[in-house]
């Protein structure tokens, strides 16, 4: 097997492995654009994975499971919204609390279901497009949710750029006091950011238990939520670049296994560090180039009611 023979499968694996990260990154971009920092993505993904898994298991419909996974993500993020927007709590610590709570809750509720399967999404090649050499295998031989994920970045980009609501959301993240003075309900927009973003993060988690595998376990997300938070910065809060980042990371995760499979004697512990070390490198590189201040100006800053 030559390196070239392995490249196309690797890229295809990168796309599939990157899809849950992509959902989560897009969700966090949406939330942060509204000015709220939600560090609880990891916990939200896990709850979404569990909720989606259980729904599919009990109703037999993976599609419903996916939707419920997203909704539960929104629900859990709602707690973060309550604490940060309603009670002006510290957003960093609240996000961490959400991670701990989400992880624990998913473990607690889901422990009886470890080791069981549920109906899920299987790969469905797109007729015609999947026959294109190389590109077809890489992009068009996946499960339907991957195809759904192709649609979201352009839609989000259009939303932020061209729609009234999108521009208002951005305004709330950038100049909340001016926006309030102009009559916008800052809290409501922040809530929208948190809930919609939470939905997408939960959906990303549901992808893991409904499409990537048809199983659930504690720790299914394995740090992908955190990688998504980092990727938001790498993407400069832009949905298009999020795609590049997510697939790159999916690729790294897939790559280190393939490297092992070739029989290398590099200890696996070192190889397993790769995705996380690379996240740091990517983050440093993105921040250093100075465009770290492309962040929404009031990201993470509480705007208490009455001020």
């Amino acid at each position: 097997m030559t390196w070239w023979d392995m490249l196309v499968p690797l890229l295809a694996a990168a796309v599939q492995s990157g899809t849950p990260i992509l959902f989560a990154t897009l969700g966090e971009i949406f939330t942060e654009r509204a000015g709220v920092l939600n560090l609880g993505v990891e916990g939200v993904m896990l709850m979404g994975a569990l909720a989606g898994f259980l729904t599919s298991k009990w109703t037999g419909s993976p599609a419903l499971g996916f939707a419920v996974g997203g909704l539960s993500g929104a629900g859990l993020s709602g707690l973060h919204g309550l604490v940060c927007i309603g009670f002006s709590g510290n957003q960093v610590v609240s996000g961490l609390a959400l991670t701990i709570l989400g992880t624990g809750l998913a473990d607690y509720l889901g422990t009886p279901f470890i080791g069981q399967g549920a109906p899920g999404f299987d790969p469905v090649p797109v007729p015609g497009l999947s026959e294109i050499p190389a590109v077809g295998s890489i992009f068009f031989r996946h499960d339907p949710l991957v195809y759904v994920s192709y649609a979201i970045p352009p839609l989000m980009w259009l939303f932020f750029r061209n729609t009234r609501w999108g521009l208002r959301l951005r305004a709330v993240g950038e100049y909340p006091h001016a926006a309030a003075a102009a009559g916008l309900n800052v809290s409501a927009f922040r809530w929208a950011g948190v809930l919609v973003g939470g939905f997408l993060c939960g959906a990303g988690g549901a992808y893991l238990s409904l499409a990537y595998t048809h199983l659930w376990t504690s720790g299914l997300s394995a740090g992908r939520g955190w990688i998504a938070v980092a990727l938001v910065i790498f993407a400069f809060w832009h949905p298009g670049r999020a795609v590049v980042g997510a697939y790159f990371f999916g690729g790294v995760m897939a790559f280190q296994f393939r490297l092992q499979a070739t029989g290398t004697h590099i200890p696996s512990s070192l190889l397993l560090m790769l995705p996380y070390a690379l996240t740091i490198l990517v983050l440093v590189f993105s921040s250093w180039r100075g465009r770290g201040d492309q962040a929404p100006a009031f990201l993470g800053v509480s705007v208490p009611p009455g001020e």
Partner: protein
Amino acid sequence: MISPFRIVKREAPLAWGACLVISGAVLFALGIGMGMLSLQGKPPLSGMGLLLQGAFGSRWALEDCVGKAVPIYLCSLGVAVAFRLQVWNIGAEGQFALGAVGAAWAVYRFSTLPGWTLIPLMMLVAFAAGAFWGLIPAFLKLRMRANEIIVTLMMNYIAIFFLDYLVYGRWKDPSSFGFPMTPTFPDSAVVGRIGGTNLNWGLLLCIVSGLLVWVFFRHTRLGFELKAGGQSLQAARYARLPYENLVVLVMVLSGGLAGWAGFIEASATLNRLQPSIMVGYGYTAIVVAWLAQLNPLYIGIAAFLLAGLRVGGENLQLELQVPAAFGEILEGLILLSVLAASFFIRYRLAPRRRS
């Protein structure tokens, strides 16, 4: 619909009342926990009773709680130092790991030294290793403007894999039948027990460090500047040290303290290095630090309570078959409740007057 109350910022944040608010939040969270128990068909009141009994109901349980609280306390102290400057060090877990690795390195490199030189040497190396692991995110934050939350978090994963690499590889005990653990520490490298109890002298380290940090926060100008600098960069400008140096200082202290926690775990509790030394103390430490409002004395209480949560949770598992994750849920709920309740420390509700 206009609510009958409006929100008014307090002239000064609640002082003593803060304790009440936080205790109330903790009880609220425990109440939700009881609700969850009953949802699963387990008896809520006796469930909580079992939790408390398992944690505090006997001398050996109390000793176990203190034993667990020691590393949590040290990590948490470090976290508090960093958080005070609003440097969000989430990396206590990784700094803990590096500290344990550093201590182990000192043991194997200098194994022939007598205890009274070896242990201080281990402490020095553990502190330095943890501090180093904290210094990297500080450097990246200052020079490259990299968000320290993500860097420290990623470094947690890297540190754990590094520990694995050593323990599966070059440091593996030849007599451990291929299982990943280092050779047992010689007695000279073990921090001993206090008298006939199950407590170890790490407790002393906690008390001393806690006192030093408390004095530092309250009675030194630098400590005050940390707090001011945390609240606004402008205030930081008037500090004696430039902001950069403050960041480096807190991350070095923070990492070093967490490194000491790793040293204690490796030396006193496990007497060796193995992957299962990592049980999430670094993350619990964050909850504890926030609960305690970054105050070294309260951190002691909170660390003890959360250690009790872990210890008591095992009793719940044994008696009621409650899943192990219950303790984690309680931690998350407590933190969220405290965060929400903190609102009332800074703001109060005043009745709207009809004009």
